[in-house]
């Protein structure tokens, strides 16, 4: 609010500026660094005038690093936004992008396909086409989403939708367990590695699908950002402010499913960021206004994922660490520090 000057506004502006700068820096750093040491000049050359660069460098920079950095950026944003949406809709601090069962839906589909049917078709998980896998995961996520949308169109009660989402997750998890139990060791490993998430396995042509899908989800989130604010006041007030609670909730579910489902389909179920980043944003920005929280969460999510990716494959490390673990191990000290400093989390 312009003339009603709010005390924390300057601080807020500073934070937004700071995180925008770090986002840009991290993106650049993520492209410059990797497990193979390439001089910065070479990288720039590969980016700006590809034909001049050495072939290996070109392959590494354009084929691996650039798509990976872009994936990290959009996945970080997508998961954090979906997490924020779910925490607000359900007013539950334990909620995250997967609370509706999106990721278990994808997992189940992948598991059914890779662990269950694939052997029958004499196909192995490791060699299953990356598109096939992504499409299967997407289908799983969307099947769950449709189920959730159906249920929430029948049961006009958030608590029930939340618990049902959890139950669907459990059920899907149970089936996944049975499939795992009967699958061979190498397939299991492939599946488990899939569940650990990865940013680097996305190809450039997949990006042309992932980025638009996530952008669509984010735009939808943006369009319903104002409604999230209304949901904070509870359903009665939301309604009295002209929000079609029912339809708005469906749209938000759809947006979150699109975001989380796409990321899960192509990068696996990356978990920690979606729950932690919204909490972090609330602690840092000290606001309940989604018109500020949403951009904050976008920025922080992108930052967090890029930083995690950077760390996951420091030049020193020979192997990339699972992105899921890096986000958690990196994020937890930050969150704990926040708590210790503030002594208290914002109750949702």
């Amino acid at each position, binding site marked *: 609010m312009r003339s009603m000057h*709010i005390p924390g506004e300057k601080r807020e502006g500073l934070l937004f500026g700071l995180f925008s700068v770090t986002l840009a820096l991290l993106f650049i750093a993520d492209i410059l660094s990797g497990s193979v040491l390439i001089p910065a000049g070479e990288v720039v050359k590969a980016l700006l005038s590809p034909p001049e660069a050495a072939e290996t460098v070109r392959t590494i920079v354009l084929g691996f690093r650039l798509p990976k950095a872009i994936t990290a950026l959009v996945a970080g944003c997508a998961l954090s936004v979906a997490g924020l949406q779910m925490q607000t809709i359900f007013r539950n601090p334990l909620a995250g992008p997967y609370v509706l069962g999106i990721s278990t839906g994808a997992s189940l589909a992948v598991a059914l396909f890779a662990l269950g049917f694939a052997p029958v078709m004499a196909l192995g998980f490791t060699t299953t086409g990356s598109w096939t896998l992504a499409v299967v995961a997407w289908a799983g996520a969307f099947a769950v989403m449709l189920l959730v949308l159906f249920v929430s169109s029948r049961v006009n009660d958030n608590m029930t939708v939340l618990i049902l989402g959890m139950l669907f997750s459990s059920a899907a998890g149970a089936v996944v367990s049975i499939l795992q139990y009967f699958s061979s060791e190498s397939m299991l490993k492939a599946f488990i590695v899939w569940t650990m998430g990865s940013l680097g396995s996305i190809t450039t042509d997949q990006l042309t699908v992932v980025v638009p899908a996530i952008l669509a989800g984010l735009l939808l989130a943006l369009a319903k950002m104002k409604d999230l604010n209304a949901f904070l006041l*509870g359903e009665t007030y939301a309604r*009295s402010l002209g929000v079609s609670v029912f339809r708005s909730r469906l749209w938000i579910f759809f947006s979150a499913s699109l975001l989380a489902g796409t990321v899960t389909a192509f990068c696996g179920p990356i978990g920690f960021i979606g729950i932690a980043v919204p909490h972090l944003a609330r602690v840092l920005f000290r606001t309940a206004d989604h018109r500020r929280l949403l951009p904050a969460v976008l920025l922080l999510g992108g930052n967090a994922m890029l930083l995690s990716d950077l760390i996951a494959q420091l030049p020193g490390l020979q192997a990339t660490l699972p992105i899921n673990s890096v986000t958690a191990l990196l994020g937890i000290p930050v969150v704990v520090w926040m708590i210790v400093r503030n002594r208290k989390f914002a109750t949702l």
Partner: protein
Amino acid sequence: MIAQATPYTLEADHLSMGYPAAGQDPGFVRTGISFSAGRGEMVALIGPNGSGKSTLLKTLAGFMPPLGGNIRWLGKALASHHPRELARLISFVSTENLRIPNMRVADLVAYGRFPYTGWLGRLRDTDLDMVRQALTKTGLELFAHREVITLSDGERQRALIARALAQNTPFILLDEPTAFLDVSAKYEIFQLLRQLASGEGKTILLSTHDLGIALREADKFWMLTAAGCFQGAPEDAVLQGWLNHLFDNPHMGFDKKGGDFFFKTEQAGSAHLSGNGEGLEWTRRALTRLGYAVVTAPPQEEEPGPGSSTPTLPPALAGKSPQPTISVIVAGLPPDTLEWNLITAHGKEKFHSLHALLSHLREIPPHP
């Protein structure tokens, strides 16, 4: 002689409402209510606890489906209004307690502008003005940047009212908006709402248990009582005896003449009271509260020589009542302080505050 009626902008027509339970129970709270309100009217919804005031407000606003009958806003059925349209028509204040961390009062009040802002929720200058005005009107200027969860009950209630004001709708429904307000704030809010009604032609519908202010400020009463429903001017309600339907309490009544409730208390002892000035009346009230039947008499001779004679009870009382009776003499001392002299069977004592007197009297049981 044509009593030209205000064209009604809000009508409830044979409305039935309630909370239908799972199976058999229809769960009616009220059936067949017909009420109406017009432009510029401030309507007070009056009824005992559980009579269905909140239910009626929620049903009118469309937060719960009516179980029968019709609701028309501006002559158009409730259901055929688009939600966004309704938000620009009606603002609502519930008794719900909002506990949202990190939300500042200004943010909460700005929610009132929600139906008017674009998808980004950007506040234009006019919106900011509205918010600022609502804060000023409710006396919350200095609270604008305070977090809502750190407000006192009354402050929060004012913030919620401010939110509704900022919504600037032709209809404002408020459920017990003054429950936690202090006397002055209560009065101010009522005045404010009255002004909105008569000055800006808004229709205000509020439920309240504050009959005193409601009688003084409301244009119309809607009453839900055990004896039925009533609508009309507050004074009509009084004159037609509807206020007595508010309580099934034999110790209580509404005094039409005095315009106030009366309570019948049981007398436990008797006291003779004399003295002068305004202290006399208040001492009477205090003694009454303690359970004395108070008889007021002209002042006795002032300040008899200390310890001169054994104190005597006024003859009028000494004879009539077998119970231990007391006599209190109130004396004004310059400058502007009072003194109380108590005469009992045990002797005579002097007090400089009513509290001291009462504390002492509490030690002497009215009935030995």
